[in-house]
């Protein structure tokens, strides 16, 4: 049981690290924070707690994807659709 969870946690870390490459504040910043957060929880033993943390990690992944999309969409809108900005 704990072994498959270990695999899940490792995959989560790898996936988050991959997402971190596009982080606005830089990949190094993201990696440092990612490492700290995972290390902070390294002694958690309860499988339920671990599953909870994995779910939180997956939520962060979705939040990052949404952030990246919005950022890109807004930048493209600003640069290519000038009539939209004329209200200001």
């Amino acid at each position, binding site marked *: 049981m704990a072994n498959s969870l270990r695999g899940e946690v490792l995959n989560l870390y790898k*996936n988050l690290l991959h997402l971190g490459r596009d982080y606005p504040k830089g990949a190094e910043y993201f990696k440092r924070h990612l490492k700290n957060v995972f290390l902070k929880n390294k002694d958690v033993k309860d499988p339920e707690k671990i599953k909870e943390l994995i779910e939180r990690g997956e939520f962060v992944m979705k939040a990052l994807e949404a952030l990246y999309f919005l950022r890109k969409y807004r930048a*493209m809108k600003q640069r290519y659709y000038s009539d939209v900005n004329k209200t200001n």
Partner: protein
Amino acid sequence: MAELRALVAVKRVIDFAVKIRVKPDKTGVVTDGVKHSMNPFCEIAVEEAVRLKEKKLVKEVIAVSCGPVQCQETIRTALAMGADRGIHVEVPAAEADRVGPLQVARVLAKLAEREKVDLVLLGKQAIDDDCNQTGQMTAGLLDWPQGTFASQVTLEGAKLKVEREIDGGLETLRLKLPAVVTTDLRLNEPRYATLPNIMKAKKKKIEVIKASDLGVDLSSKLTVVSVEDPPQRTAGVKVETTEDLVAKLKEVGRI
């Protein structure tokens, strides 16, 4: 049910969030060591093709890119988003600067015929050169109908209904397939190519060919004369009264 095949062209450009720097010799912008990614409008094109496949309207999505070997990263992203296979039309780095919309359009036209596709999808323009020509030229060379600046694409049997973003509103066209479509911002929200999808996509094939294999001439009649920063905006001047304003405007010859 679906027998349609789609070709999606993707371009590797400097990432949209990077601050562009002009090279001191004014021959171009700095690209060495700079983060590159798929052109945002091309992402929208790939997403649309993959969605058509998920709706079982398109059988196969082929991603193609022209350029040096790094283009394969961009093709891999398209494969991770759901394209079935890739074609890399390799152009040596030294010649890559001369490959513009016309050259790419010649390649895409030949590939569309070779692969017998029914739909060619591209982004409306690349964020590096902002040409907005490749899709149109491809349609011209193939003598296919085109729906550019598409904000909605619906398949109706052997026809394609395309809603286009134009000045002052939306225009709806019905095109007979095969056709070329270029994608605009509001068409869809592209999915992010997550690591598991990238890993799965490693099994998908990327065929590497040269433009000469297609019988395409990559020569260009254009040369870049210089690339410069836009002029610096001069600071504004504050005035105290309307009389001062009028005097200042007269001074600079505006009135």
